[in-house]
């Protein structure tokens, strides 16, 4: 790429995490996920008000947290890519990888929210402020990923366009959040997701919720590194072919001229 300088080491970094660190994170992720399953399904006591259905919360809340984290990472990486001094392929790939994970976690949060809402409140979809915000976030992600799939004539130009699109959507998230909060607080209705109305989460339940959040975040970091690695491999092949085509063109025409 003409403008995107190679990384400081001169070579595009192949992955985010050093292999050793990645294996460690991988193992810790598996351990924490297993612990989450144990605590989430058996360890934590059954909620008196909502019954066993409340156990879905241990996955729904972490997913929703990851959705916003992934979106923040995409926006931060996009900003770094746009700033000429820090512009590098790393940030563009990171933004894309995080967005793809964001779509998955946001979708999961919505599905789990629905599965949790049904038994507890008898509705598949509750117009709760946070659930609505998460739904809009889901479509912002989908739009961004759809845009990324469309190639641009100039790779750097396309990456700049995607980065700007990410920031435009990112600025929208707080506006959506406030407007939806105001909208839903007008219709004050006890919903399963409103912390003020939820029974105070404490003890083993609180621990399990923390465990879920940590396990999901670790999983996100691991998958982010793997998805980034895939992007490097896929870009790598394209770059090599391009350099070969240029070299070929120069050698043949030089041959002719000389």
């Amino acid at each position: 790429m003409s403008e995107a300088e190679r990384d400081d080491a001169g070579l595009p970094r192949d992955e985010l995490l050093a292999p050793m660190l990645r294996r460690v994170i991988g193992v810790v992720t598996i351990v924490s996920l297993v612990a989450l399953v144990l605590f989430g399904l058996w360890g934590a006591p059954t909620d008196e008000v909502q019954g066993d259905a409340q156990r879905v919360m241990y996955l729904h809340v972490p997913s929703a947290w990851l959705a916003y984290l992934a979106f923040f990472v995409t926006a931060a990486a996009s900003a770094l890519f746009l700033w000429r001094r820090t512009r590098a392929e790393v940030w563009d790939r990171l933004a894309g990888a995080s967005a793809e994970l964001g779509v998955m976690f946001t979708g999961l949060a919505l599905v789990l929210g629905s599965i949790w809402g049904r038994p507890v409140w008898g509705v598949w979809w509750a117009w709760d402020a946070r659930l609505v915000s998460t739904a809009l976030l889901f479509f912002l992600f989908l739009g961004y990923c759809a845009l990324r799939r469309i190639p641009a004539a100039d790779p750097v130009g396309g990456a700049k366009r995607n980065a700007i699109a990410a920031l435009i959507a990112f600025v929208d998230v707080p506006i959506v959040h406030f407007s939806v909060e105001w909208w839903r607080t007008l219709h004050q209705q006890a919903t399963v997701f409103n912390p003020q109305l939820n029974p105070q989460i404490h003890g083993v339940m609180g621990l399990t919720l923390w465990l879920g959040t940590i396990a999901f975040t670790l999983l996100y970091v691991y998958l982010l590194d793997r998805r980034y690695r895939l992007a490097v491999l896929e870009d790598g092949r394209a770059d090599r072919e391009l350099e070969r085509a240029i070299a070929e063109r120069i050698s043949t025409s030089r041959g002719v001229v000389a």
Partner: protein
Amino acid sequence: MTDVGYVIAGWSVAGIVLGAYTVRLVLRIRRAERESAPPESNT
């Protein structure tokens, strides 16, 4: 459907989605690695 049914549904959906994505990702990486460096891996 009893509450337990919903719990099982929720947790299995999460497991399937996350698991499937991870497996597919690892497979895609393996295939890409094989394609991009066939000459060196002739041991």
